[in-house]
C-alpha cells in the first residue's frame, strides 16, 4: 500500500531519449535524489554539503548577490523573476529587520517538484536559504509549507533541527558570527497563499488575501519589513551556484536563464514524474521521448506547459524549448513547470471546466472581476459540458474571461493578484485553439466523450448539488 518507500524520486532525471541526439543534462537540483538517506545531514555532508555556505559567509553579502545575478538564476515559483535582482531590491538603509520567506506552498495544479526537494534533499533548501538570508541581511527565515504536506514538513523541520545542532543555523552560523533563525510555518489549505503577498498575510496570522502592489514585499513585506519570497527550487539551486561558480551554472542554461529545470509531467503519458532537463529540451521531446507519450499509441491533443494556469498548446506548437522566454514567445508561460498532457481520449471542455472550478473555489473574493467572473466561467462551462449550452454561452464565456483578463496572453489585467489571469488565460486559450470541440458539445447537446463518473452519472457539484451560479 505504501507507495512512498522507496522514495519516488529515483527515476532517471537525466534526459536519455530513445533515439537521436538530444540535449544531455547534468543533474543539478536532483543530483542527490535516490542516495540512501539523502535527507539526513550526514548524507548531505558526505556529498560536500554546507561547503557553499561557508564559502558565502567568507564573502561580503553584496558579492553573494552578484554571484547569483551572474548565474542567471530565475525564480522557479511561477513568474521567473531574476533571483539576484530580487535580492538586490532590499533597501540598504531601512533600519527594520529583514525577512526571508521560502514558498513551499506548492499548490498549482500539475506541479509536484518542490515536494520531491523537501522529501529528498531538504538540506539543500536549508543551505540555500541560509545563503540567501545572509545575502539579503535577514536574521529570520520562515519556510511556509502547504498544509497538506505532513511528511514534507517533518523532513524540512528535521533538517532545520539538524542544522541547528551542527551550528549551521543559530547565533553564529558556521562560526561566522552571523545569526540566523529558521522556522517551519505550516499552511492550512488555501491555494491563494502561494501568492507571495497572500503568503505574507497568512504568515502574519490573517486570511490569505493578496495585497496591492506596490509596495512590493522587498520594501514592505512580512511584519511591514523588507522581505524576499523565493520558491523552494529556486533556493535549492543556490548552494551549487556558490560551489561550482556562476559561469558554470549560467552555461547549463540558455542566454537569459541559468541552470536546469525540474519539470513535472502528469496526465496522459506512459512515464509521468519529475524530470530534470536542460532548458533547451523541447516540450515535444519531454512529452514524447522522455515520458513516452500517451498510452496505446493515442495521439497528444493538448499540453499545458506550466501549471494549470498556463495557456494550453496544440500538438503543432510543441517544438518549443522548456524555457521562460521561448514559452512566452509561444504565447504561454513556463510557470511552475507543471506539464499536463491530454491525449485524444480527453474531453477538453470537461478539463477546462475542472480547471475553472478550481480557480472559482480558490478566488479570495477581493476583486469584483475575479470574484464574480470565476464562478460564472465555471457555470457556463458546466452548462456546455452537460449538453445544455447555447452558442451565446460560448460568446458570454469569452467576454467573462475578457473582463477578468483583457489582453490574453498577457497577464496582469484588472485584478490585485494574478489568480484572476490564471483563471481567465486557460479559458481564452482552450476556446481559441479547440473551438470545434466546444461547438460539438453545443450542437449535439451532449458530451461526446465517456462520462468519467461511470454508469450512474450524477450532478457535478462536490456533494451532488448544482454548482453556484447555475440555474
Amino acid at each position, binding site marked *: 500500500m505504501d507507495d512512498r518507500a522507496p522514495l519516488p524520486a529515483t527515476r532517471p532525471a537525466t534526459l536519455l531519449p530513445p533515439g537521436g541526439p538530444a540535449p544531455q543534462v547534468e543533474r543539478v537540483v536532483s543530483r542527490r535524489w535516490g542516495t540512501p538517506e539523502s535527507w539526513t545531514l550526514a548524507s548531505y555532508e558526505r556529498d560536500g554539503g554546507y561547503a557553499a555556505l561557508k564559502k558565502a559567509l567568507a564573502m561580503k553579502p553584496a558579492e553573494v548577490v552578484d554571484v547569483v545575478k551572474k548565474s542567471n538564476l530565475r525564480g522557479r515559483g511561477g513568474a521567473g523573476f531574476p533571483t539576484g535582482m530580487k535580492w538586490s531590491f532590499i533597501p540598504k538603509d531601512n533600519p527594520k529587520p529583514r525577512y526571508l520567506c521560502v514558498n513551499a506552498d506548492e499548490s498549482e495544479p500539475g506541479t509536484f517538484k518542490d515536494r520531491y526537494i523537501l522529501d529528498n534533499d531538504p538540506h539543500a533548501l536549508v543551505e540555500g536559504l541560509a545563503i540567501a538570508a545572509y545575502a539579503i541581511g535577514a536574521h529570520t527565515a520562515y519556510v511556509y509549507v502547504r498544509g497538506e504536506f505532513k511528511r514534507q514538513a517533518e523532513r524540512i523541520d528535521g533538517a532545520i533541527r539538524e542544522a541547528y545542532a551542527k551550528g549551521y543555523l543559530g547565533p553564529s552560523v558556521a562560526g561566522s558570527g552571523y545569526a540566523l533563525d529558521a522556522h517551519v*510555518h505550516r*499552511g492550512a489549505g488555501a491555494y491563494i497563499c502561494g501568492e507571495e503577498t497572500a503568503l505574507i498575510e497568512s*504568515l502574519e496570522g490573517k486570511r490569505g488575501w493578496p495585497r496591492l502592489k506596490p509596495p512590493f514585499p522587498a520594501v514592505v513585506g512580512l511584519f511591514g519589513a523588507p522581505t524576499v519570497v523565493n520558491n523552494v527550487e529556486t533556493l535549492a539551486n543556490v548552494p551549487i551556484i556558490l560551489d561550482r561558480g556562476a559561469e558554470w551554472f549560467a552555461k547549463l542554461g540558455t542566454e537569459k536563464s541559468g541552470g536546469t529545470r525540474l519539470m513535472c509531467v502528469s496526465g496522459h503519458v506512459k512515464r509521468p514524474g519529475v524530470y530534470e532537463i536542460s532548458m533547451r529540451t523541447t516540450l515535444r521531446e519531454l512529452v514524447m521521448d522522455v515520458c513516452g507519450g500517451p498510452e496505446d499509441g493515442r495521439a497528444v491533443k493538448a499540453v499545458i506547459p506550466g501549471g494549470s494556469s498556463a495557456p494550453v498548446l496544440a500538438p503543432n506548437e510543441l517544438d518549443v524549448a522548456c524555457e521562460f522566454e521561448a514559452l512566452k514567445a509561444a504565447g504561454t508561460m513556463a510557470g511552475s513547470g507543471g506539464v*499536463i498532457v491530454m491525449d485524444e481520449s480527453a474531453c477538453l471542455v470537461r478539463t477546462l471546466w475542472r480547471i475553472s472550478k478550481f480557480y472559482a473555489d480558490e478566488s479570495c473574493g477581493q476583486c469584483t472581476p475575479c470574484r464574480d467572473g470565476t464562478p460564472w466561467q465555471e457555470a457556463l462551462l458546466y452548462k456546455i459540458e452537460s449538453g445544455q449550452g447555447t452558442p451565446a454561452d460560448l460568446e458570454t464565456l469569452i467576454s467573462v474571461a475578457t473582463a477578468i483578463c483583457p489582453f490574453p496572453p498577457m497577464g496582469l489585467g484588472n485584478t490585485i493578484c494574478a489568480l484572476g489571469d490564471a483563471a481567465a488565460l486557460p479559458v481564452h486559450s482552450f476556446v481559441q485553439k479547440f473551438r470545434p470541440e466546444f461547438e460539438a458539445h453545443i450542437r449535439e447537446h451532449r458530451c461526446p466523450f465517456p462520462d468519467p463518473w461511470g454508469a450512474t452519472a450524477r450532478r457535478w457539484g462536490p456533494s451532488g448539488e448544482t454548482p453556484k451560479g447555475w440555474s
Partner: protein
Amino acid sequence: MAEIVKRYPPDRKRAAMLPALRLVQEILGHLPPAALEQVASKLEVSKTACAEVATFYSMLRLEPRGRYSVEVCTNVSCSLCGGEQILRHLEQKLGIHAGETTPDGRITLREVECLASCGTAPVLQLDEEFHERLTPEKVDALLATLA
C-alpha cells in the same frame, strides 16, 4: 503553545495563529467556539479575527468530523487519470457523498484540490498521508485497514 509563539517576534504574536489553531484542532479534532476564544486570548487578538482565519482555510474545521479523513483529489491530472472513479468508488463503498461522514462517525470523505502528487495520480490522503497510483482494488485494501 509557548514554543510556537516563540518563533515569531514578541510584538507579532498573531503570526502564531495558524500553528496554534492547528495544534488545538489536533487535540480536539475540530475548533469549537470556546477553542477559538482561547486561542484569540492567548494571541491577544479579537475573537472575530480568529474566526475569520478559522473559516478561511480549508483544513481548519469548525465542525467535528469522522475518526478518519479520506480526501480524494479530482483536479485536472487526477481527473485525467481516473480520480473521479476513485471518488465514486469510495462513495459507493461508504454509502455517502463527498463532504459527508459515515453514519457511524468513522470516515469523512472529501473531494479536494490538487495535492501536488499529480505524477502518481490518482491520489488520496488518508489523515494527511499520501496514497498514490490508486485503483479501486487499492482503495478497498486501504479501507480494510481502517478500524
